[in-house]
């Protein structure tokens, strides 16, 4: 049995790995069940929301009508009245279509409602729905309609790509890093704590080889967990969900008119996360060689990663090596995968690994 195989077996045959996989499976299955269970409820909620908007618009309309009757020269109120009437009409058309399969018509009336209400608000009118929220929904619906993609309930979808997007979003925003730290974060420190490192140190094995094998086995465990997670997600949604499309748009957070498709989002965020994982593995191994205490090295690593993400992010956006600690957020904010932070992150992974290698050779 080679050293790498030995290290990998230590990780994969541990109770912790088993429980993590069980927990991960339960989370994926639980989330899917939740999506299925709440789907009808969410559609009902949507219907109720339309009723609330309608009542609010009707009340506002009555007020505006009176205002215009009292003062026919009040052009601002007349303008608002015009947009509000259009919005209300769209709501009347939209409501019966909430549960209909004619999603294009439903989307069109929602777009009409949103555009009317945005115009109404820009004419000085007041409405409970937030302008930013309206602009975002408007842009997304237009994009869906233009591409001919049926809309899915955000966060409650059972379509393969949308559920995969939901899982990816959780996984690439610190999730993968946390999982790796839970499974293998103490791969080196536990050896010092339990003195099992002496088992390896009293064999004709180079210390550098021990570090190489630990580094590679951590990468392999990350790949294994990732493959398992996405296979399970695909399997569940394929069996019990609906097909959907990977061209479904993921909206930018900074610019609501920026979209990337789910396949681009999943692919790019996984690339960003994977490079960051290399950096995280080198970082935890380096810290472990100095601190030799599991909890302390895990906490320091996490603090450095989260702190680095926010501190570097506020100083320099384009050169932030921690940018892809929250890969999903960064990707949605930027709208595309940035190479420079990835190169810096990868470079730091190599530098830290070399530092760890020097330290490992001198350690007893």
């Amino acid at each position, binding site marked *: *049995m*080679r*050293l790498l195989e*030995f290290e990998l*077996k*230590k990780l994969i*045959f*541990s*109770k912790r790995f088993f429980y993590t996989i069980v927990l991960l499976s339960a989370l994926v299955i639980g989330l899917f069940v939740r999506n299925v269970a709440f789907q009808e409820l969410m559609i009902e909620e949507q219907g109720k929301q339309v009723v609330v908007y309608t009542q609010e618009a009707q009340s506002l309309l009555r007020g505006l009508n009176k205002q215009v009757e009292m003062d026919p020269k009040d052009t601002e109120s007349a303008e608002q009245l015009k947009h509000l009437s259009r919005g209300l009409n769209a709501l009347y058309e939209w409501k019966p279509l909430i549960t209909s399969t004619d999603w294009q018509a439903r989307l069109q009336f929602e777009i009409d409602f949103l555009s009317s209400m945005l115009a109404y608000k820009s004419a000085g009118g007041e409405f409970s729905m937030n302008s930013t929220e309206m602009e975002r929904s408007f842009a997304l619906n237009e994009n869906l309609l233009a591409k001919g993609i049926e809309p899915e309930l955000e966060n409650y979808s059972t379509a393969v790509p949308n559920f995969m997007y939901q899982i990816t979003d959780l996984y690439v925003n610190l999730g993968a890093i946390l999982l790796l730290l839970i499974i293998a974060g103490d791969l080196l420190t536990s050896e010092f704590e*339990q*003195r*099992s490192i*002496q*088992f390896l*140190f*009293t*064999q*004709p*094995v*180079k*210390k550098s080889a021990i570090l190489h094998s630990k580094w590679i086995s951590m990468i392999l465990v990350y790949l294994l967990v990732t493959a398992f997670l996405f296979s399970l997600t695909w399997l569940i949604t394929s069996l019990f969900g609906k097909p959907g499309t990977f061209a479904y748009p993921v909206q930018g957070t900074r610019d609501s008119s920026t979209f990337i498709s789910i396949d681009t989002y999943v692919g790019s965020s996984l690339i960003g996360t994977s490079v960051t994982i290399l950096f995280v593995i080198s970082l935890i191994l380096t810290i472990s060689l100095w601190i030799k205490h599991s909890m302390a090295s895990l906490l320091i690593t996490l603090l450095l990663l989260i702190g680095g993400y926010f501190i570097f992010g506020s100083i320099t956006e384009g050169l932030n090596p921690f940018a892809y600690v929250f890969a999903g957020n960064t990707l949605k904010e930027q709208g595309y995968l940035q190479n420079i932070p990835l190169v810096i992150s990868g470079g730091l992974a190599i530098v830290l690994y070399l530092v760890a290698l020097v330290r490992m050779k001198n350690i*007893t």
Partner: protein
Amino acid sequence: MIIDVTGLKKRFKQQEVLKNITFKIEEPKIVALVGPNGSGKTTMMNCLMNLLPFQEGHIKILGKDHKDPSIFYEVSYLQDNRVLYGDLTGEDHLKFICHAQKLPIKKAKEVAEYIGMDSYAKKRVRSYSLGMKQHLLLAVAVLNNPKLILLDEPINGLDPTSSIQMRNILMDLHAKGTTVIISSHNLEEIDKMTNTIYFMKDGKILEESLEDFNVPHYTVTVSEPEKANAVFTAACLHVEQSGNRLIFSENKIPLQRAIDALNQNEIEILHIENKKIGAERRYMELFESELSS
């Protein structure tokens, strides 16, 4: 030269744990390290195996610097069973050693059979009893047919069967030319294995051999022990007294001379018994102050 240690000094912060230790082992033998807890036995073994750095001194193992990892092709160290990986099987450990030592994998099975652990080799170590873990450690240690094997308290906690088995395997290894360095608190077992004992106290080796004590001793039980003791003291002969028993060393006071002296002084001899001075007796002498406190 199997081991050559010169001027070994080890400090933990301000505390000196090993104080200028020098010794050589030139030919295969069984050497026991005996001393109270904290006397420096494990620290010395860890220094020999390059598991602990030290401040001064030189260590050569089988003619090579002790930092050279290639020494582990010919040297084994049986440590505390915490070094084992609970999630892996005994077989995993042995197969890994086979690979590390560049030995054929079949050797793992052979050694498991030789040690008598083949029935549980495929079980995870976390399910092993203490004895099973010690057997696995021993299997790991003997897998490479070492020229030198160090064992840190291998007998502690073992049942009599396992202790006897462990002793037999070590004696067998020694017979094949392996030098065995064993630290243990079980002085009876040590006596059965060797009379080369390094008594350690406060980071120093007090004595390197029991060979001087390997001469016949005898105990004479007398009716008037004080009077008898006074007779020998007057003749400048050292006799150890324990109750009404006097302990003699054959090379200092031959038995016949002692009998004659006692008869001349009309001291009645009640009983005569042959006695070997073993590790325990010597330990009691060397660590008298600690025992009395």
